[in-house]
């Protein structure tokens, strides 16, 4: 007989004290975000905080942005489903980010060009049409990618607090969280974002380490390895195991996503562009490689612990998450980690941890909202209007777009019914943008013969990534693993860039239009010093 959901959710330790801690934290965070808005005077202040981020602040804000609640949730889901084998994703992200920091691959040169956004690079290298098309692809992939953030974050809140028995809880929490983030992002721009990111980094770091230690205590450090061995066998540890859910294709896809996460993804690149110098960017990324690894690995471990707890200590949850065939519907496994934490963490600690998680939620939303809205303003609308848009007009439009994107993610979170793992959904939707961006950035920065026609072809080829999405495959009646579809898309975009550039090279510029210093800085031959990667 199915377990009543009310029983599953109601046994949380979340108390009035915890609600007080959460409310106090949110108030302080929003007030500080509002207080610093007086420093915003122009678009550079609004979008890149006046390019004044030092190394430590850069690491804090990069970590705060990229360690969102959605990251923690989808990672816990991967750990719950894949066991310790999921750790390979975290290791790939950490190693690749360190490599990017060490060599400065892509990010160093982008920062040297003093850009505000990636499509601005497209324009300088490939012309204004490529900038607009690149901006459209970026906004499309990015906003679609962000579509489940709000819902997944809210699932954590209702799961950990025990609100979820109420039908109104999820949409209400989604709306309240969204309004809070919109208020200070709209008013303060990047300056508010980096200051609140810093506070959130501090709270979040303490919370992550605390949860990991308390989770290990709840299920037993040695016991959890034994449980995974007994329940999953080799597939719970070895990502290449034949019967596992990963495999070599998936591992290669994860290595590429490691590169995307730090060097191609606009919110990460935005931190590089906001750094006070190109040298700072390299230090920032080398140090951030640790947080890029831990932001995934710690929540994988929580997911593994949730699995161990359910398998060994809670028959009632076992029945809810793994019902015997024909006895009921399997509960959404995104709830596993928050329900686990709600049961094993004591009151008070739960409030601090939830505040840390909301910190993670807010620090990601503010940056993403700012990033996509500024791309639409700077890279689509302003070029179409031939740059007749004033500074105040740009800031006003960016603020309107922040609210519009917020409304969209509320709507999408409520209607999307795909069955993909959240991580795989995000990888596929993000790939619409980043497979094309990979070809354009690498080609544009390191290959002299890359042409604007090749760039347009590569951007269009990036759309093929959407075929990796579950509902799209259902519609077309095809079945291709998302990792394979992602790798195919990369192959298509690179091929399109190479073939397009060789068949349709750009016309040589007349002497009067000789490239400026900035333009030559990203041609392949300009890598004159060892540092200038």
């Amino acid at each position, binding site marked *: 007989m199915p377990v009543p959901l009310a029983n599953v959710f109601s046994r949380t330790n979340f108390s009035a004290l915890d609600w007080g801690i959460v409310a106090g934290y949110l108030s302080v965070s929003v007030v500080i975000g509002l207080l610093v808005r007086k420093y915003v005077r122009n678009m550079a*202040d609004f979008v890149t905080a*006046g390019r004044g*981020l*030092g190394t430590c602040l850069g690491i804090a804000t990069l970590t705060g942005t990229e360690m969102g609640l959605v990251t923690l949730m989808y990672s816990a889901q991967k750990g719950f489903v894949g066991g310790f*084998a999921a*750790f390979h994703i975290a290791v790939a992200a950490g190693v690749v980010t360190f490599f990017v920091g060490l060599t400065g691959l892509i990010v160093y040169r982008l920062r040297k060009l003093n850009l505000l956004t990636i499509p601005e690079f497209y324009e300088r290298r490939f012309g204004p049409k490529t900038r607009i098309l690149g901006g459209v692809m970026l906004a499309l992939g990015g906003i679609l990618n962000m579509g489940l953030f709000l819902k997944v974050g809210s699932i954590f809140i209702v799961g950990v607090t025990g609100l979820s028995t109420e039908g109104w809880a999820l949409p209400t929490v989604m709306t309240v969280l969204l309004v809070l983030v919109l208020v200070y992002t709209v008013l303060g721009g990047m300056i508010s974002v980096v200051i609140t990111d810093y506070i959130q980094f501090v709270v979040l770091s303490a919370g992550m*380490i605390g949860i990991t230690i308390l989770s290990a205590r709840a299920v037993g450090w040695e016991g959890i390895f034994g449980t995974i061995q007994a329940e999953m066998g080799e597939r719970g540890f070895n990502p290449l195991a034949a019967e596992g859910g990963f495999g070599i294709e998936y591992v290669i896809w994860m290595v590429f996503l490691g590169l995307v996460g730090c060097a191609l993804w606009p919110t990460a690149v935005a931190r590089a562009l906001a750094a006070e110098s190109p040298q700072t960017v390299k230090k920032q990324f080398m140090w951030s490689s*640790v947080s890029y690894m831990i932001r995934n*690995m710690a929540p994988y471990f929580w997911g593994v612990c949730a699995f161990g707890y359910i398998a060994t200590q809670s028959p009632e949850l076992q029945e809810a998450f793994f019902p015997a065939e024909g006895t009921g519907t399997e509960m959404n496994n995104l709830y596993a980690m928050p329900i686990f934490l709600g049961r094993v963490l004591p009151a008070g600690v739960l409030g601090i941890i939830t505040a840390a998680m909301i910190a993670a939620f807010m620090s990601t939303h503010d940056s993403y909202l700012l990033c996509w809205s500024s791309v639409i303003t700077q890279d689509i609308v302003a070029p179409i209007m031939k740059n007749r848009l004033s500074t105040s007009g740009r800031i006003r439009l960016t603020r309107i777009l922040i609210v519009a994107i917020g409304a969209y993610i509320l709507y999408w979170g409520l209607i999307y019914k795909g069955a993909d793992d959240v991580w795989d959904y995000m990888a596929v939707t993000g790939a619409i943008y980043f497979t094309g961006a990979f070809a354009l950035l690498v080609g544009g920065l390191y290959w002299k013969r890359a042409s604007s026609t090749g760039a347009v072809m590569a951007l269009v080829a990036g759309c093929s990534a959407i075929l990796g999405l579950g509902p799209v495959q259902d519609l077309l009646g095809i079945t291709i693993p998302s990792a394979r579809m992602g790798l195919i898309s990369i192959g298509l975009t690179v091929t399109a860039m190479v073939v397009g550039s060789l068949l349709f090279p750009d016309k040589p510029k007349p002497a009067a239009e000789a490239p400026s210093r900035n333009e030559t800085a990203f041609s392949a031959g300009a890598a004159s010093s060892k540092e200038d990667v």
Partner: protein
Amino acid sequence: MGFWVLLWKATLVVGLAVYAGMAIWVTIGGARDIRRLFNRLDEQHKQGPS
């Protein structure tokens, strides 16, 4: 399988320890960077209206 168990145990423990150390350094250095950021923005705004 013993190799994988040992690898993931070591990676988690070492990773968390390094992260904890980095978090302390970034917390202290970040506060200093915020002061510098505000000073720099004030200077920029004094030098010329936007």
